[in-house]
C-alpha cells in the first residue's frame, strides 16, 4: 500500500502530451494569421463549420476552448468580473462571460491582446461563426459581441428535432436538405467575406481528415471498455481539444497523434494496465461538461479507486459508410458523409431486434432510456457523476431525469456534483469529496443489487 500511496493516482497516457500540445498551435496560428493579415474566425464547436472554414484558409479559434483554458490556468476570474461590469447577468454561460470580459479588455487596448491573456491570447476576429446547435448561448453570445467588434456574425443552423419527431418518416431527408442548403448559404457568405472562391477538393481533404479522426477516437473509446479501464476521462478531455479544434486545420498530425494513442491504449488493454495507479474499485462515467478549473479533483477520486472510464460529452459518433455514388454535389457529399438518421443510428447501435424495441419506446415515451444510457451498460459503470453546472442550463436540465432512468434500468446510482465549467467560486471540493465518500456506500449497495438481479456487472 505505502508504495502505491507514493505514486500519483493517475496513470496518464504518454501519447496524450503531444496531442494536448497541439492546441497551443491554434493560438500560435491565430497570432501569425493576424500578423500576415489572414482572416481569423472565432468559431463555436459544432459539426460543420470548422472543416469548411479551414478549407477556405480561414484560421479558426474557439473561444469555448479559450475560456476553459483560462479556467484551467485559474485566470478566468478577472474576465468573468469584467463581464459583470459590462452589465451581463452573472448566471449566463461561463464560457460566454469570460469571452465577453476578454473582448471588452481587447477593445480597451485598441484591439491588442490583453497582456494577462494566457497561451498568447486570441487574436481579434474578422468573422464570428455562431451555432444554433446544442445551446442558445452559442448564438446569443456572439451576437452580443457586436458591442466590441465589427466582425460579421453567421449563425450556422442545424436541425435539433426531439427523438420522437426525428423518427417521423421524411424528417431525416428534410433535415439533410436543410443542412445542405444552409451550408451553401454559409459558403456564399464566406466567399463574400474573404473575396475568394471555395476550393471544394480542399473541403474533401479537411472533411475526410475530421472523419478519420472521429473513426480513431471511436475505436479508442471501444478499447476503453476493458477492465481495468485503460484510459481515464482526464486523458480524453486533454486530447479532445486537439481532435475537435485542430482536426480540420492539421488533419495529418492529429490523425497520427491519435494513431499513436490508439496503439498505447491497445497495449494497455493487452497487458491489463489501468488508467489509475490504484486498484480499480469503481468504474464511472462523467456526465456533463468538465470542471476545467478543478480537474485535479478527479485525481483525489482516482486516489480512492475511482476510474472514470467514459463520459457523455464530446464523444465520437459511431463511424458509418454511405453509398455516395451518383452524389456529385460537394456539399451534399460533405453532409451525407456525417449526418445520419436517428433510425439508422439505433439500428447500428442495438441490432435489428432491440432496435425495434428502442424505436417503439421512443414513439411511446418520446425518448429512449436505452439510447441515453447504453454507454453505462457497455462500459459497465458502477456509478455516474452528474456535473450540474450553475451557469449552463442546457447541460444541466436533463441530468436528474437521466439519473432516474439509469437507476431504474441498470440499478446504477448517480452522484450530483454542483459546480461550473469556469467559475471556481461555484465548486466546493471539500463538500464534493465528502459526498463522494458517502456515494461509495451507495455504489457498493447497488453492486449487490445488480448481482442479486443477475445483471452482467
Amino acid at each position, binding site marked *: 500500500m505505502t508504495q502505491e500511496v507514493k505514486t500519483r493516482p493517475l496513470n496518464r497516457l504518454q501519447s496524450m502530451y503531444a496531442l494536448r500540445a497541439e492546441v497551443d498551435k491554434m493560438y500560435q496560428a491565430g497570432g501569425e494569421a493576424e500578423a500576415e493579415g489572414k482572416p481569423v474566425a472565432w468559431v463555436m464547436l459544432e459539426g460543420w463549420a470548422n472543416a469548411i472554414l479551414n478549407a477556405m484558409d480561414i484560421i479558426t479559434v474557439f473561444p469555448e476552448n479559450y475560456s476553459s483554458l483560462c479556467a484551467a490556468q485559474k485566470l478566468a476570474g478577472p474576465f468573468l468580473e469584467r463581464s459583470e461590469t459590462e452589465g451581463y447577468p452573472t448566471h449566463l454561460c461561463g464560457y460566454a462571460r469570460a469571452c465577453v470580459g476578454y473582448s471588452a479588455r481587447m477593445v480597451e487596448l485598441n484591439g491588442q491582446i490583453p497582456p494577462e491573456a494566457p497561451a498568447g491570447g486570441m487574436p481579434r476576429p474578422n468573422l464570428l461563426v455562431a451555432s444554433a446547435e446544442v445551446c442558445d448561448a452559442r448564438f446569443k453570445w456572439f451576437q452580443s459581441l457586436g458591442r466590441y467588434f465589427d466582425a460579421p456574425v453567421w449563425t450556422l443552423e442545424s436541425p435539433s428535432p426531439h427523438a420522437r419527431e426525428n423518427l417521423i418518416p421524411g424528417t431525416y431527408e428534410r433535415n439533410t436538405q436543410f443542412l445542405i442548403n444552409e451550408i451553401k448559404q454559409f459558403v456564399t457568405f464566406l466567399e463574400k467575406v474573404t473575396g475568394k472562391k471555395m476550393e471544394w477538393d480542399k473541403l474533401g481533404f479537411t472533411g475526410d481528415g475530421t472523419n478519420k479522426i472521429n473513426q480513431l477516437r471511436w475505436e479508442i473509446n471501444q478499447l476503453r471498455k476493458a477492465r481495468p479501464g485503460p484510459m481515464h476521462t482526464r486523458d480524453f478531455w486533454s486530447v479532445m481539444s486537439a481532435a475537435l479544434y485542430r482536426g480540420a486545420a492539421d488533419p495529418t498530425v492529429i490523425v497520427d497523434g491519435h494513431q499513436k494513442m490508439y496503439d498505447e491504449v491497445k497495449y494497455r488493454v493487452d497487458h491489463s494496465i489501468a488508467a489509475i495507479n490504484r486498484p480499480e474499485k469503481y468504474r464511472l462515467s462523467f456526465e456533463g461538461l468538465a470542471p476545467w478549473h478543478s480537474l485535479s479533483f478527479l485525481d483525489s477520486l482516482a486516489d480512492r479507486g475511482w476510474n472514470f472510464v467514459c463520459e457523455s460529452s464530446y464523444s465520437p459518433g459511431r463511424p458509418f459508410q454511405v453509398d455516395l455514388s451518383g452524389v456529385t454535389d460537394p456539399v451534399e457529399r460533405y453532409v451525407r458523409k456525417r449526418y445520419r438518421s436517428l433510425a439508422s443510428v439505433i439500428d447500428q447501435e442495438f441490432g435489428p431486434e432491440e432496435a425495434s424495441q428502442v424505436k417503439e419506446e421512443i414513439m411511446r415515451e418520446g425518448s429512449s432510456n436505452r439510447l441515453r444510457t447504453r454507454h453505462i451498460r457497455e462500459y459497465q459503470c458502477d456509478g455516474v457523476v452528474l456535473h450540474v453546472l450553475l451557469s449552463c442550463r442546457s447541460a444541466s436540465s436533463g441530468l*436528474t431525469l437521466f439519473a432516474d432512468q439509469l437507476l431504474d434500468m441498470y440499478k446504477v*446510482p448517480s452522484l*450530483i456534483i*454542483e459546480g461550473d465549467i469556469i467559475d471556481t467560486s*461555484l465548486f*466546493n471540493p471539500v*463538500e464534493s469529496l*465528502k*459526498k463522494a*465518500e*458517502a*456515494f461509495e*456506500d*451507495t455504489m*457498493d*449497495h*447497488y453492486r449487490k443489487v445488480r448481482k442479486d438481479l443477475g445483471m452482467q456487472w
Partner: protein
Amino acid sequence: MAYYLGIDIGSGTSKGVLLHDSDIIAYHLRRSGVNYKQVMKKLREELLEKAEVSTSDIVGTVATGQGASMVDYADIQIADIRCCARGMNKVFPEVRTVVDVEQQSTQVLRINKQGQIINFITSERCASGAGRFLDIISNVLQIPLEEIGPLSLKSDNPVIFTTACAVFGESEAVSRVAEGISKENILAGVHKALAEKINSMVDRVGKEPEYGICGGGALNAGLIEWVQRRLAVKLLVPPQPQFITALGAAIFARESGNNKISS
C-alpha cells in the same frame, strides 16, 4: 478496557460520544467557537472526565464534521453523512429515510438495513433549509431557540416565506414583524418553508418507511411536527438527536478498532 470515541466537529457545536463495546458511556457537547483545534482538545478532555476514562483506554477514534481534519488524535476521518446514517441505524434499525437538520445544511438520506447510504441529498451552497435559518429567526424575534417551534404551532395563518436565503429570510422576517404580523405566524412561516424544503428533498431521494429525524434541528418539537404534517408520516426521534453523527463515528471507530484487533 476498550473504548471507542466519535468526535463530530460541527460549525455550530461539536459533539463527542464514548462507546464501550456497543454501550454508550458518555456524551458531551460544546460550542465550536472559532477555533476547531481548541474545541476538539477540550471536547475530548471533558468527555473523558465525565466518563472517568483515561486517554490510554481509547482504542479507536473517528473524527467527522466540518472540522474533522483538525482532530489530530483521530485514527481516521469519515464523512458526516455516513456517520449520521450509521448512528441512526444503531438507534432505529428499522429507519430507512433519515432527515438530518444541521446548522449549515440539511441532509436527507435513504439507508439500507446495514446503515449504508443508498441515496442522499444535501442542501448545498446556500444555507437555506438548514438549522441556521431557525437560529437567525429566533435571534430576530428574540425568542429562545427551544421556544420557537412550540410557538409556531399556535399560528392560525403562517406567512409565506418567499426567499430561501437564510440571511434574506431574516430581512423578510424583519419586515413582517415591522408590518405587525404576529411572531407565531412568522415562525410558522419559517418552519413551514423548512418543512417544504425537506419534503421536496425527501421526494428526491425517494420515500421509504420508517422515517427518522436527527441533528440539532430535531430538538425542535415544532419543526418535527411541521415536517410530519408535510410528509404525512410519523418521524422517529432519537433521545439525543444532536449526537447521532458523533455516535455513528464512534461505531465506525469500534469497527475499525475491531479490525485492528482481528488483523
